């Protein structure tokens, strides 16, 4: 075996009634890497993560999570995986310390006090340890939740949109923690909607309508898309957007501040469409590598 895989699942499928929530998803995450899990709302990210940590039984598919069978060894997986839910799910009427001590007891950790103290210190939570979790702001809640999820030294961390609603500074601190953990050998799969977070990951997978449709490094995913993007800058470029949308070759137009991103797969057609505007005063048109966001939005719009 070339490299050990923390997650190795094939054909993972989950149905809710008639709806196919996750449709034959294959994911193979090598140990120690940080993978980003992207996709629009309702595309199956949470369902996939819940299947990986033993909270949902897959209807189809097979594979292992940190070496345990996802179909038959859910209990072992729960013991060795840290899962941070999308919505804050610790006990708001318990203090930070009480929450952590509860977790330590449930996982039957030895030297509970030391572990909890270390974790409080590590996350800078000592001076707030007796505050009720419900009274914390979003950033502190998230920090506490992370602490509770890694208290039992899991081998794999599954994070479901951990930074939603958290300020930029707290997000940056959070990612520093994640990278620190990854250096110690922890494998992380994190779902997110933030492009800058996707770029902090070793690799990303993109899921749409339950199907994985892109994977690789950010660079790979952008390259695989075959997308061409032109930037248009200048006074009043916004008014061009509507007319551009209907030009042949233009698949997608987006605002980025005072800038327009115009994207399509056919460079020549795109160039022809833009030629009409290139003469206008104060307008600057240049080709640029597409951003990850351009690629994702285009993937989403292409979907049937």
């Amino acid at each position, binding site marked *: 075996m070339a490299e050990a895989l923390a997650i190795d699942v094939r054909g993972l499928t989950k149905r809710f009634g008639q709806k196919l929530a996750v449709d034959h998803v294959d994911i193979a995450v090598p140990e120690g890497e940080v993978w980003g899990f992207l996709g629009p709302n309702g595309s199956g990210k949470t369902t996939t993560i819940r299947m990986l*940590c033993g909270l949902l039984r897959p209807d189809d598919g097979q594979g292992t999570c940190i070496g345990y069978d996802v179909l038959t060894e859910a209990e072992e997986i729960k013991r060795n995986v840290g899962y941070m*839910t999308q*919505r804050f*799910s610790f006990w*708001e009427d318990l203090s930070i310390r009480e929450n952590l001590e509860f*977790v330590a007891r*449930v996982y039957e950790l030895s030297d509970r006090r030391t572990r909890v103290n270390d974790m409080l210190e590590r996350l800078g939570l000592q001076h707030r340890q007796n505050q009720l979790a419900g009274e914390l702001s979003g950033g502190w809640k998230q920090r506490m939740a992370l602490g509770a999820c890694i208290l039992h030294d899991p081998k794999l961390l599954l994070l479901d949109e951990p930074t939603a609603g958290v300020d930029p500074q707290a997000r940056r601190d959070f990612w520093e923690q994640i990278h620190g953990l990854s250096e110690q050998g922890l494998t992380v799969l994190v779902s997110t909607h933030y492009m800058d977070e996707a770029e902090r990951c070793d690799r990303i997978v993109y899921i749409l309508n339950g199907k994985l449709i892109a994977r690789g490094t950010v660079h790979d995913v952008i390259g695989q898309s075959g997308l061409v993007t032109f930037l248009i800058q200048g006074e009043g470029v916004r008014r061009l957007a509507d007319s551009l949308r209907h030009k042949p070759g233009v698949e997608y137009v987006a605002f980025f501040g005072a800038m327009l991103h115009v994207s399509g797969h056919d460079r020549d057609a795109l160039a022809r469409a833009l030629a009409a505007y290139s003469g206008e005063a104060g307008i600057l048109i240049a080709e640029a590598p597409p951003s990850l966001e351009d690629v994702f939005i285009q993937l989403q719009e292409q979907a049937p």
Partner: protein
Amino acid sequence: MRGFSPQRFVAVLMKELLQMRRDRLTAAMIVGVPVLQLCLFGFAINLNPKDLPTAVSIDDPGMFGRSIVAALTNSSYFRIVRQTNSPQTARRLLDEGRVTFVVEIPVNFSRDIVRGSQPDLVIETDATDPAAGSYALAAFNTLATTALRDDLVGPLKARAQGPPPFQLVTHLLYNPESNTQYNIVPGLLAVILTMTMVLITCLALTRERERGTYENLLAMPATPLEIMLGKIAPNILIGSIQSAIILLMAKFVFGVPMLGSFWLLALGLAIYITANLAVGYTFSTVAQNQLQAMQMMVFFLLPSILLSGFAFPFKGMPGWAQDIGEVLPATHFLRIVRGILLKGNGWVEIWPQVWPLILFLFAASAVALLRFRRTLD
């Protein structure tokens, strides 16, 4: 300020109606509770109980004794379930709560009537529930007198007139003063415990579900049994405190006698409290939200009050209502607590009420554990 806007009022109204429609179970319960109440109050409850189980202890071969037995058989108030010649056997049936009355026709009853020496005709009743037997008791005297009148012919005809040829002796056992509090206060112990214990645990899991902590709990390695026991155990303490308060007040404020063993009562209490906690926990595994859990509690509480023998005489209810009552823990505990406090019952007499409680406890726990899913499926 802004005054009353009919449009805003309608906006809130419509939203509430829509939300109400989404919660089907709640809507079903709103229909279900009044139907349940009507059935219980309308059909099951009988303030003038008839067909009360009666044991006859007869040690007299004469015709007068037989006439009285025949009259009891034909009356609508009494139903003879046992005929014996041993007063001890009859008394034990009363101790165990199997019969409400014992009619004792003593040796030489017929001979003494013929002689005109007015023999005793004894009726003993279980007065732990004074209301249960009062009508029947009132009917008994007339019943016996009339029964004998037809037999008093020929030379005895003169006795048919005037006072009855026997001396009616009424024994109100266990509660000679027919003190209603002796019945109600121990009964309240059963009802209050059912109410609070079921209420406390029926929210146990629904609260976790509504606050979003349920998913986290499931993602951790705790097993369903560990979760259930962990959630039930602390409430046993609360139940014990409640019991202590009620028992102390029963003794010192209401003067309820405590004839039996305290430890036996404590054991019964422990089982009863745990059984009710298990019921509440079972509800919380079924209910989707706290409102539903509360409604289930009401569904359980109503029969526990009305069909257990707390509010109305158990033996006076129709058969189907008694059958439902037999399933409820409150019914059995009511017999245990009244038996121990008022009758001085020991282990032998209460065991028939203890095992159904234990069975109920295990059944409710089994349902809860089966209902509890280890996954979010």
